[in-house]
């Protein structure tokens, strides 16, 4: 058989290696071909957009309005309430006119009343207001509309036991779930990578000590450890992120340590050491880029895991402090009022949780398959 008749796969593979395509380009191409992984990434992108635009999608304040000749953007101040912005950043920002909650023009009335007036034609001439698609705030409680079923009183997905709109709380809950997932994983990946690479590179007693620590940490049921610590700390989203972060690193550390042990014997590391490059530079600039790939896979799955932990914590009542919205907390109300059969409090946020977990798991699987050379070009 002539070489030209070789299967297309091998031909393109040789062509690629001749052109010198980088590892990450190959991985990217593989993922593009993987329809499920692309679906996962698409869902993640969608969720990220929902989270970023949450205050403009669901709010009891208009996105933009003209009131007595002035153009106002009242919805933007919600960004400081809905996003996990630390106090020392949020407080100065609240003094900025655009983000402040100070509207003397309204004379103490709520935005909703003002908008209702404008829509009824009772406002001053030239006034207009653009309300968000979901015209309810995530913390807008209403004692008169408690536990409404979907569709009742204009609540598309109904209301919870405080009369807050479920859809609005779900949209704002996206922020909490995604940010906890990503930040917590970021924390533990950093801890795991640093500890694991130092242990793997230096070996000896450092390695022994780290491995012992890992063995100890692995023995604790993570979720139980997390709620124990969380229960002692003030309820805050940062504490959740940090606690998940500092309890979940052993897996990453072990992974990186193994990779480092393998890489240590390779020529480029020898060369780097022979050239007198400091160890820290060798580890983090030379070896890490070559060993970090499997961590990326486990981090993607890890985001799903961290979101699962966050929603479970909220379900058990250890989540973010009210009135901050969280998916798990809405589901727990369905359990509290079993006899009333409030399916909408379980199904919709439940679907949101499942969709998010599926998205990150699909992305993780796609990434894993794309990085596995045995599965390439099949």
């Amino acid at each position, binding site marked *: 058989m002539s070489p030209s008749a070789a299967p297309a796969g091998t031909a393109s593979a040789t062509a690629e290696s001749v052109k010198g395509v980088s590892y990450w380009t190959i991985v990217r191409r593989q993922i593009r071909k993987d329809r499920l992984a692309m679906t996962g990434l698409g869902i993640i992108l969608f969720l990220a957009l929902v989270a970023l635009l949450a205050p403009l999608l669901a709010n009891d304040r208009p996105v933009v309005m003209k009131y007595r000749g002035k153009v106002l953007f009242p919805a933007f101040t919600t960004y400081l309430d809905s996003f996990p912005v630390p106090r020392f950043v949020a407080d100065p920002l609240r003094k900025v006119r655009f983000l402040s909650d100070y509207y003397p023009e309204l004379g103490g009335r709520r935005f909703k009343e003002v908008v209702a007036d404008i829509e009824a034609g009772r406002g001053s001439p030239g006034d207009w207001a653009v309300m968000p698609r979901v015209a309810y705030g995530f913390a807008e409680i209403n004692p008169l509309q408690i536990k409404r079923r979907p569709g009742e009183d204009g609540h598309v997905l109904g209301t919870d036991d405080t009369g807050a709109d479920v859809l609005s709380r779900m949209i704002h809950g996206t922020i909490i779930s995604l940010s906890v997932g990503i930040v917590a994983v970021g924390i533990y990946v950093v801890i795991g990578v640093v500890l694991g690479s130092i242990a793997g590179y230096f070996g000896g007693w450092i390695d022994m000590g780290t491995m*012992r*620590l890992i*063995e*100890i*940490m*692995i*023995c*604790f*049921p*993570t*979720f*139980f*450890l997390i*709620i*124990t*610590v969380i*229960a*002692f*700390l003030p309820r805050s989203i940062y504490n959740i992120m940090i606690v998940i972060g500092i309890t979940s690193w052993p897996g990453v550390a072990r992974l990186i340590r193994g990779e480092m042990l393998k890489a240590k014997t390779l020529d480029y590391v020898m060369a780097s050491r022979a050239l007198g490059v400091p160890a820290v530079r060798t580890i983090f600039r030379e070896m890490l880029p070559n060993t970090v790939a499997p961590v990326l896979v486990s981090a993607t799955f890890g985001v*799903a895991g961290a979101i*699962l932990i966050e*929603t*479970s914590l909220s*379900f*058990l009542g250890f989540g973010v402090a009210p009135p901050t919205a969280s998916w*798990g907390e809405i*589901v*727990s109300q*369905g*359990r509290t009022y*079993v*006899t009333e*059969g409030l*399916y909408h409090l*379980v*199904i919709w946020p*439940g679907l949101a*949780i*499942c969709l998010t*977990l*599926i998205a990150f*798991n699909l992305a993780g699987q796609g990434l894993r398959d794309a990085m596995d050379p045995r599965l390439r070009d099949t």
Partner: protein
Amino acid sequence: MIPTLLGITVVTFAIIRLAPGDPVELNITTGPTASGEGGGSDKARADIVRKAKIELGLLDREGKPIPLWKQYGTWVARTVTLDFGRSFKDQRRVVEKIAEALPVTMMLSLTSILIAYLVAVPIGVFSAVRRNTADDHVVSTILFLLWSVPSFLAGTLLILTLGRQGILPFVGLHSPQSERLGYLPYLWDHAAHVVMPLACLTYASFAALSRFVRTGMLENLRLDYVRTARSKGLPERDVVLRHALRNSLIPVVTIMGNILPQLIGGSVIIESIFTVNGMGYLGFQSILSRDYPVIMAITTFAAVLTMLGILVSDVLYCVVDPRISLQ
């Protein structure tokens, strides 16, 4: 093993002692002991706090604080003899409470592991034999979707549907006064109560486990000994079940060590949803009421159990694979 044990106790001790808030102060001001004895004057209250602290080993007999390392030493010494002190909540001995809760959780966890293996291994074999066919894809998709459903969601949905319709009971593991029933009705009652919690504990492990089996099978089916078995004319059934499966089960045994801590962690959620009086629910309640002695005992117990689980799976590894020996 001994260093790991010591490490477990250090971590447990550190979490509780370094946690913000004084356990005793908190309990006496807000806890159940607040009412009754001397709630009135500050001096009387301070006296109670002091007494409680001496009893807990935080202060010595003269009321002077004991250094942290000494406290740790006493605690470890007492822990070794299974003396975890008394619960803040009802003054019962912690060991008694654990002795009641542990069998419940162990029963659920072990049954769950058993079911997980019984279901996942055949599924894994099936997907491997039918790899990349429609059957394989359907099975993998279903398991993948199940894996992405949080157990608290599944539990709540089950309660809202089966539980609310009265099809299955969802509170506890027995009906009230079930002891009066005869043996068979009692067992039936128990089984009905167990179905939903057990299902919620188990379904998530199907996906990971069966995928593990599938990968192991695929790797083995490629090997020479399988070709030999086929070429000597063994029926495909025997090739798969007697040759490939036995060899691919070796790594599957070891992930039992990973499943156990997940089950114990997961039991907090499941037992709380279904009001099962096991370790998870006990832990949940004691965390809520800041019952420090119980929390410490449960954390230690769970960690030691997991350590033993890992040890057992290491030993099993050697049993199923004679090439590996315990050093």
